[in-house]
């Protein structure tokens, strides 16, 4: 019951709000209230998971093995919390700044349902279904603004991601073919009995699908086009919440379901990730609009997650989880700050930029330290150099935006609503606060990684 609560709250909230005009302030406030309730329910579930182990339920009281299982473990809860938190912040930001379209609040709630479901399911086909709920809501959200540019971005986003979904669906069907089950535990158990070559092929299919979602280096071409042209709050939702499906999927399917294939391809993943870090950072130096720079930056940032996943082991996986969470927070603040004008905003942007570069005392520092430690444990010296170079480059490109947008621009444009600006500043201070007191987040990530490797909850 506890497990269903966050899903049910957002789902019924979304359905109930769908007929109402989201541009009215009251509807937006109700939607934020529903999100807060779902977030509280998720925190409550999280406390149960952290103190007494994973929570499970089988839908419809079917015997285990036949019914579809929902399961909350450390990893799922960590990703669900950060994604729901990001959506909550982005929705509150949009409500404070004034909603432009009637469907926005209800769509954000639908997307929360889909995302929470993805992170709390223990069935690979159910994973696909929730994933499509979140994706469909995001396709419509991407058109927010309804200018030709927004529509073009939404079309590109939709076509590329539909292709990714088809590839993932093929991967799920093949996994079912070789294991005869859709339950994650069953798949993890039986996949070792299948021939390595066919499982490797499936692993590649799933890697491509999640790489597309996440905007990893060789599958990144849609990212700058889409993030440049979508509305800032929507770009924040897509890149800081929806993209978490990609990193969670890589962790769950790679380290959780197919660890043998993951260790076979580990060096390849590290190479792809390192190329992504360099390529994203170098490309981010040249573009002219802030959205594009952050998009290229995010391509580089997800490279770190892939590198950490490639290094593997408890240290590497903890680093991957920690980095995904911190990366979500950074991108949330960066995208939201880009959409605003007025004083306070530049400060928020600068704080998030320092976090991306990994300057202490921001949260990003601990993300970089985790990657650094994982690289040092694995004796990979080039990686250590890469982390430092990547951090330095990110400081350069983000401060080029700062120069152009906050120093050089004349502030003739009217400042944005104070509420939205204060919210962004509070979020940015949150990043610094996590940097000053990182222990809870470190424990959360270690717990999440332990859920993958079998130890702990």
């Amino acid at each position: 019951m506890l497990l269903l609560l966050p899903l049910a709250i957002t789902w019924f909230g979304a359905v109930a709000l769908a007929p109402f005009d989201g541009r009215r302030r009251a509807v937006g406030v109700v939607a934020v209230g529903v999100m807060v309730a779902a977030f509280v329910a998720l925190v409550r579930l999280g406390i149960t998971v952290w103190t007494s182990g994973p929570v499970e339920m089988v839908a419809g009281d079917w015997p285990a093995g036949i019914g579809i299982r929902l399961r909350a473990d450390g990893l799922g809860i960590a990703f669900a919390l950060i994604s729901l938190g990001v959506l909550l912040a982005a929705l509150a930001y949009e409500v404070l700044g004034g909603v432009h379209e009637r469907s926005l609040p209800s769509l954000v709630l639908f997307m929360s349902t889909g995302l929470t479901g993805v992170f709390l399911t223990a069935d690979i086909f159910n994973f696909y279904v929730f994933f499509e709920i979140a994706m469909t809501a995001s396709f419509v959200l991407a058109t927010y603004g309804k200018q030709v540019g927004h529509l073009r971005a939404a079309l590109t986003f939709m076509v590329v991601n539909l292709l990714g979904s088809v590839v993932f669906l093929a991967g799920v069907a093949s996994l079912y073919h070789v294991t005869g089950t859709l339950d994650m535990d069953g798949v993890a158990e039986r996949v070792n009995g299948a021939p390595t070559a066919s499982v490797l092929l499936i692993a590649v299919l799933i890697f491509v699908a999640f790489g597309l979602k996440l905007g990893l280096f060789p599958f990144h071409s849609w990212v700058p086009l889409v993030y440049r042209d979508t509305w800032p709050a929507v770009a924040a939702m897509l890149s800081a919440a929806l993209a978490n499906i990609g990193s969670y999927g890589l962790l769950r399917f790679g380290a959780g379901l197919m660890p043998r294939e993951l260790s076979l391809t580990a060096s390849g993943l590290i190479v792809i990730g390192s190329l992504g870090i360099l390529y994203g950072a170098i490309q981010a130096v040249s573009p002219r609009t802030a959205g594009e720079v952050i998009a290229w930056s995010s391509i580089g940032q997800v490279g770190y997650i892939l590198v950490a996943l490639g290094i593997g082991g408890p240290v590497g996986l903890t680093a991957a989880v920690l980095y995904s969470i911190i990366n979500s927070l950074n991108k949330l603040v960066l995208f939201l700050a880009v959409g605003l004008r007025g004083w306070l905003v530049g400060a928020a942007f600068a704080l998030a930029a320092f976090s991306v570069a990994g300057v202490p005392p921001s949260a990003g520092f601990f993300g970089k330290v985790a990657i650094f430690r994982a690289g040092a444990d694995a004796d990979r010296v080039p990686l250590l150099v890469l982390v430092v170079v990547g951090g330095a480059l990110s400081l350069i490109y983000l401060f080029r935006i700062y120069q152009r947008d906050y120093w050089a621009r004349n502030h003739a444009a009217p400042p944005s609503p104070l509420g939205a600006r204060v919210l962004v500043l509070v979020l940015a201070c949150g990043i610094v606060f996590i940097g000053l007191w990182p222990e809870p987040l470190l424990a959360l990530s270690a717990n999440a990684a332990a859920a993958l490797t079998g130890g702990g909850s």
Partner: protein
Amino acid sequence: MILALALVISVLFGCGAFLLLKRDLIRMAGGIILISNAANLFIVSAGLSRGREPIYPLPAGERISDPVVQALVLTAIVIGFGTVAVLLGMIYRTYTARLAKAVDEGDETGRTPMSMPPEDRVAD
């Protein structure tokens, strides 16, 4: 049977991928439809086994075909149908928005409003 299905899936996917790369948005939607149907066929073929229909009471001693893939493909078809509907809606919205823009400003790009909108360079 396996060969026939593999051929059908590959031809469907190939045609879909070809159409997907077109500039014309309706053809692009056609490509998505073909590709998602190739995926549906792929799911059916993942549980390909000859046998009796899986309806209770099950005949003893005979092979039963796998019912799970039917349920999966039914779900996948419904999801695919929904997404194609959203895609067509979005294409129509793009069409009307570009038509309005072309009427307002005069469209010199020479493309029809039914194609992917050109990228405008963002002014600094």
